[in-house]
């Protein structure tokens, strides 16, 4: 401690202070020096922090993984489904689900199903199926089954699992034309899950652009946008869907109808988001860094999208995960009412539409099974959204 400061002597009172500069190196973190482990935590980037926070929300994490798996599966649904979703089995109409067994008469066989005997009960006019305990039909894996066009491009006939040669494998039963319910649900997921993503893209693009500009500019533009949003929000949805689906030309292919429906869902849904974006922007635009950017001559889009939007990105992500289920439900509701998708396209909504009568509930309850994935997926999205919202503000 023999440096300059120790030698410093105060001048007599009344005399000016001498100019002095500390020549020692200065470290602002010196008072609280961080260990390597501490550095990792305290200097972690925003995203890492969010991830840590998110990880602690177990349910959200599980939901997220579940959804990732589900979305990955729709890429390869041709491979996953044991049957083609259109292949009919005239001898197995409305066949109840087959149970998977492992042991046959005490010996281990591996996963197999028992064969089915089919009888026509002409008195009750009902097809009855009984298990034929003598016919053991082991499930085959990575096998050849119904041919398909993978993504409509590559010919293939490999399936993850298929019935034994000459046997059947209806794990969730069959519908009224003898089509495998499980395969139809796997293919249906492709439509039902993506309709949410496409819809959300449309509604987010519109919501962020319109809401962003309204919030940033304010004034007359904001006023007009707000009134338009009010009008759109006050339109009753179902009659509007009815009208829109009625004007869709019947000659359109089901794929075109599908895209139009996602578009309709997206066009109806952006208003809430636009409001949220606008109010966020109203508060953020008063910040000093915005003034600074303006003074430096940044253009409006740059200010909005480069400086302002990242400020509430976390909010956007959370609200997206909560909006996707609404879209899925929207499609299901539309198709349930018979306004949405039409055969031969299949979705969970289409399948539920086909299941809505007393006969199904009483006699063929397995046809209502597509309700389960709808519920599970929507719950998963809600948990995920919940977790993301918590994680979005990690401090």
């Amino acid at each position, binding site marked *: 401690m023999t440096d300059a400061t120790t030698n410093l002597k105060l001048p007599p009172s009344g005399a000016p202070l001498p100019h002095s500069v500390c020549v020692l190196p200065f470290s602002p973190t010196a008072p609280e020096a961080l260990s390597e482990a501490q550095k990792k935590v305290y200097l972690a980037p925003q995203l890492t922090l969010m991830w840590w926070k998110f990880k602690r929300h177990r349910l959200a994490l599980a939901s997220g993984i579940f959804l990732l798996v589900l979305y990955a599966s729709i890429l390869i649904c041709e491979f996953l489904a044991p049957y083609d979703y259109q292949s009919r089995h005239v001898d197995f109409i409305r066949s109840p689900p087959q149970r998977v067994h492992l042991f046959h008469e005490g010996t281990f066989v591996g996963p197999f199903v028992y064969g089915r005997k089919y009888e026509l009960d002409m*008195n009750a*006019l009902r097809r009855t199926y009984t298990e034929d305990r003598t016919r053991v039909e082991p499930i085959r894996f990575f096998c050849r089954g119904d041919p398909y066009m993978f993504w409509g491009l590559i010919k293939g006939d490999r399936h993850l699992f298929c019935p034994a040669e000459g046997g059947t494998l209806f794990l969730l039963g069959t519908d009224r034309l003898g089509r495998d319910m499980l395969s139809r649900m796997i293919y249906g997921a492709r439509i039902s899950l993506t309709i949410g993503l496409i819809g959300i893209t449309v509604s987010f693009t519109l919501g962020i652009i319109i809401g962003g500009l309204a919030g940033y500019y304010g004034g007359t533009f904001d006023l007009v946008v707000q009134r338009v949003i009010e009008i759109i929000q006050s339109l009753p949805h179902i009659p509007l869907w009815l009208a829109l689906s009625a004007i869709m030309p019947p000659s359109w292919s089901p794929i075109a109808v599908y895209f139009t429906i996602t578009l309709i869902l997206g066009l109806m849904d952006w208003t809430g988001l636009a409001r949220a974006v606008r109010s966020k922007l109203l508060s953020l635009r008063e910040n000093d860094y915005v003034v600074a950017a303006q003074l430096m001559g940044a253009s409006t889009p740059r200010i909005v999208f480069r400086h302002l939007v990242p400020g509430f990105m976390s909010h956007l992500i959370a609200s997206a995960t909560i909006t996707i289920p609404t879209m899925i439900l929207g499609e299901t509701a539309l198709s349930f009412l018979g306004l949405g998708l039409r*055969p031969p396209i299949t979705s969970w909504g289409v399948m539920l539409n086909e299941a809505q009568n007393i006969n199904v509930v009483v006699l063929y309850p397995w046809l209502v099974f597509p309700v389960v994935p709808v519920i599970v997926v929507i719950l998963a999205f809600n948990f995920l959204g919940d977790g993301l919202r918590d994680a979005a503000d990690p401090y």
Partner: protein
Amino acid sequence: MRSLRLLLVFAAAFFAGPAHAGADLSLEAPILKEEVASRRLPPVEKRLPSEPRVINVAELGGQPGKNGGTLRFLMGDARDIRMASLYGYTRLVVFDTKGTLVPDILLSADVQEGRIFTFKLRPGHRWSDGQPFTAEDFRYWWEDVANNERLNPDGPPAQMLVAGEKPTFEVVDETTVRFTWNAPNPSFLPSLAAAQPAQIMMPAHYMKQFHKKYADPNRLASLVAQEHVKDWGALHDRKSRWYRPENPELPTLSPWRPRTTPPAELFVFERNPYFHRVDENGRQLPYIDTMTMSIGSSSLVPAKVGSGAADLAARYIRFEDYTFLKAGEQRNDYSVRLWERGEGSYASLVPNLNVSDPVWRALFRDVRVRRALSVGFDRHTVNQVIFFGLAHEGANTVLPDSPLYDPKLDQAWAKYDPDLANKLLDEAGLNRRDDDGIRLLPDGRRAEITIETAGDSTEESDILELVGYDWQKIGIKLFVRATQRDVLRRRVIGGNVMMSVWPGMDNATPAPDMDPSALAPMDSMQFQWPLWGQYQSTMGREGEKPDMPAVVELITLKNDWSHSTTTEERRRIWSRMLEINAEEVFSIGVVNRVKQPVVVSNRLRNVPIEGVYGFEPGAYFGIYMPDTFWFDDVAKAN
């Protein structure tokens, strides 16, 4: 003079009263006993016409019953209360179960030279309000309604005209009227017996209060204001509507009279104490006192019926509901019977020959295309998958119950033959295909047919799905579009619908004497040729002039039928018209003779085990006379 006679009738009734005060009430319906005893209602022999129509219930295969009970129906729409007019099936003349015309309200209908119709009424027949039913009711309709400028600006309805000429109407006496045309009018009697018949009389004593000619102008004006209608004509129309019985005050001749003014959830119909039919024991019909129609959602009808909420039900119940209903038989004390449906085809695919798309119009008018589409799908699969093999695979034509049935026509172009279909389509100029194997139209578009349905039947969409699989193999792509009944009608007439699904011939068990209008363009409701039908029904004012030779021949044949005098001649015309329809495949039948589940309470007697369920000629249950059905409460107690 008339009023004097009326007075005399009343006087007679009054003075005859005391003699019956302590009389035998055993034949009286229990519900009416008190009213009769207290002389608020004349006794049954005074209420019946002097010559009532005697229904020999035992001879019909039933057993004579007793009065009482409530017959509950479930309906899907308030407009369905017209079922009361159908189930009652009371007409001037009616068809019996063998298809012959018998007088019902009339005592006799005498026809000379096919053009002079003399109708004799039953003396002493009364409307449900107790007023006499006489020739005056016919005269009022003909002179003051049919020929009234305000009520019928276009003159009398088409059934009353032969080659545009009106009949001469005369009142011969109090109970006899006569219509005379210059040429034969073979459709006159069948149209009176139809499920929705031509109306040629009205309760004059009641309707006169709404008629400008008879009513007190001040009172009429206040009535018009009170009912919020435009003028007296609209009021008269509204008050005289009987087919859909919305006016409980309108006197009726049916077995049950309406007691509820719409809008309502539950419509009640009470026995008509003046009904003109009796059973062999002299007991006045209907046996059942009250009929109720409960209005709810049509999709819930099967569920409600399955829980025992109806005593008799067939409407809104489909073949596929049978299994479910059968399961509830024990629990809810009903039984499910399988009747046969009476239409020519349960669902038929109807190509629109007047579609606005010129390419498809030309194709549909090519008989090879229609035939190819018909042989291009497998009816057997449809039958097996949807109807358990219980239906009959065939074209849209008459059923074996009809004397005009011909198995050759039934199977014409109805056998699955994809090779033939391919050959016919190739010949018709659809020989180019794209990569998916779908044929290309002459203008390069894909051969995609959109079939529109009324959208209320899953069976229809299943049939179409199966048809679609087979058509795909012959290079035709099928899309299904579900709309609503009324929307579909409008779109068909507008030429926007390429092909629709609709039940086949309404009356598939016709006799030669019945009108063959369904086989030729006659009105715009025929989905295969809406514009040609419109042209015919409007005498060429609207629509398009038919230009296909086969269709022109059908119209000529229909006109020949209208001028025919003998049954033999009519049989020949019918056969030829059926043959043309079968060969030209104007509508593509899928299956017919489909079973119709009929749910009958175990307490209800006299409902046939087997029957034909159809609108024409039977008015659904009407032809089996629900007025002879009765409740056996003893059976329930046991």
